[in-house]
């Protein structure tokens, strides 16, 4: 597998009246061709800002972006908007969380899909229409010719989410970024959408960055997982390793907070405390106030990424050379 995206020491900071918010603070990750990579974390962990930075949707200035995003040997950080436009939407496309608010209510579905196709593909009108209808059929939209002429309000959330997937696929992109694509949907509809995404990923051989807070969805879909907490990646693992031998105390906490059947009548295990807010991250490891294993060192120094195996790493002092358990 070849490397398709290489993010190195990426930082995205915002200046706010409360101080500088380090939304993404020095994260590095790689992505291989044809894999599904999940970025998991709770609200405010920086997962959405990470992909918005990759998509060039963060406006600089006022925001501050540092580091490198290497896509096909080109650095996307600092790239002009004009150049970006040839990549964004064509080679890297995005699926957003809220299907109801992503589409413009004033235009038909067909018009909005045509807009994307026209911007990036050199097709004539006839071909554009054919391609759109064929991609709508691929995401299981019944009667695509009829839906083509309809408006977003005439469709349900699940259907719109599938149309958004169609919109992301129409340019046959290398990378699809899906930001919580099923969070706004009901579980039975979520299952349908996830199945479509998995099937189409195989068919188009795209790579998917999948952002979610739902570890159940991660287990169903992804190949590799990166867990984020407070602007940092705290654990990187293959999906099977993450569920079978989670290393970082935060990952363990997340996995434990699943409401299992056998807990009925008992207390649920939980992670102490709350997620810190972005302008008041604690000193040292950002998880230390909530961590059951916090040591002196954790309160002083931010842990670097410790390698556990070739495919597994955690940013935690528990796995430091001299601290190994």
């Amino acid at each position: 597998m070849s490397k398709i995206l290489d993010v190195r020491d990426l930082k995205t900071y915002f200046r706010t009246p409360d101080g500088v918010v380090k939304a993404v603070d020095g994260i590095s990750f790689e992505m291989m061709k044809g894999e599904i990579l999940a970025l998991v974390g709770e609200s405010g962990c920086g997962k959405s800002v990470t992909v918005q930075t990759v998509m060039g949707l963060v406006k600089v200035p006022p925001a501050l972006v540092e580091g490198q995003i290497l896509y096909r040997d080109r650095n996307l950080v600092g790239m002009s908007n004009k150049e970006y436009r040839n990549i964004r939407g064509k080679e890297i496309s995005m699926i957003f969380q809220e299907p109801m608010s992503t589409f413009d209510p004033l235009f038909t579905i067909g018009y909005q899909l045509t807009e994307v196709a026209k911007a990036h593909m050199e097709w004539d009108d006839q071909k554009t229409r054919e391609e759109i209808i064929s991609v709508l059929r691929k995401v299981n939209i019944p009667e695509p010719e009829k839906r083509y002429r309809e408006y977003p309000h005439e469709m349900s959330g699940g259907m719109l989410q599938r149309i958004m997937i169609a919109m992301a696929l129409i340019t046959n992109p290398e990378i699809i970024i899906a930001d919580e694509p099923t969070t706004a949907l009901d579980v039975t509809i979520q299952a349908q959408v996830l199945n479509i995404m998995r099937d189409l990923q195989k068919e188009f051989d795209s790579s998917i960055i999948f952002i979610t807070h739902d570890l159940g969805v991660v287990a169903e879909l992804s190949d590799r997982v990166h867990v984020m907490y407070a602007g940092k990646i705290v654990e990187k693992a293959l999906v099977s390793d993450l569920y079978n031998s989670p290393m970082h105390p935060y990952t363990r906490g997340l996995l434990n907070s699943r409401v299992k059947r056998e807990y009925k009548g008992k207390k649920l295990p939980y992670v102490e405390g709350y997620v810190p807010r972005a302008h008041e991250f604690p000193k040292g490891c950002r998880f230390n106030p909530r961590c059951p294993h916090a040591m002196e060192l954790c309160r002083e120094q931010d842990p670097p990424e410790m390698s556990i195996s070739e495919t597994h790493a955690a940013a935690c002092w528990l796995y430091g050379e001299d601290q190994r358990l």
Partner: protein
Amino acid sequence: MLAIRGGSKVMKILQIERLKKYFPIKAGVFLQVVGHVKAMEDVNFGISKGETIGVVGESGCGKSTLGRTIVKIYEPTAGNISYFDESGREHDISKGLHRSVRPLFRRDVQMIFQNPFDSLDPRMTVRDIIREPIEAHNLVPSSEMDGYVSELLMKVGLYPEYAQRYPHEFSGGQRQRIAIARSISVNPRLIICDEPTSALDVSVQSQIINLLQELREENHISYIFISHNLDVVHHMSDRILVMYLGNVVEASSATELFDNPSHPYTKALMASIPNWSPENRKLQDVRLEGEPPSPINPPPGCPFHPRCPYRLEICDKQKPVSRALSEDHSVACWLYDR
């Protein structure tokens, strides 16, 4: 009255019979009623002291309408709500709250909403938010008020100093704790929780569920627990109602429902919950197609028949009535009508 007869210790709080709520759709210059959103049809259940009833279903199934009709935010279109006060006297509250019942009922039945970012007034301090219901019911003399508010804050796991602060200074989980403190401030016997954890992060969700359980054990509070999350509902509830398109399709004790799900919709709902195990992925086996139809024009017959994999001849002609499979398990499905 019925419930306490014969010296039984089980005290009823609410009894709901054939409860129905339609919302009119108005259109045209004269706002004529052109149709109805049939949000809830024929819901029956009772709730006793210390008991938790879970209501589960997807968006648009009528579970929130049910909660809101019970607390009298909405007036029911038809059906009966009987409220039993602390002395066991029965009051019919289906046609509005009578002046004599209102203070009792409003104190006895509280509600916790889904989104703690909307349910707390941003211009009131935490003290004022919690104090308001206590003052409305004249429960605590004003000299003891600050002490009582501090006590409540500690009970829900917050520091008493937080009383001076405003809601925006808190995270979602902390705000939900404030909302809980407000709801228990008047010593209610029943709290209706409408998706109390769905706006929260997973690591915080368990904290709130544990808190609700502690309060139930300490104060014998009953809950009507509304959620789309089957696992959470199972954890909290003694009995569960599964709703689909305004109808209760299955009702059972929590353990029985999970051991022996019977309605095809309940089965599909369970199959759609991801497994948390990359070795045993299961979503590709989900056979449920389509989406819930509109409650304005519900399909004839069984509301689930257009999506049901076990559809029979009769399903689109006649609506199945609820029938008992066992003592505490009933299902509305033609498959069990033999």
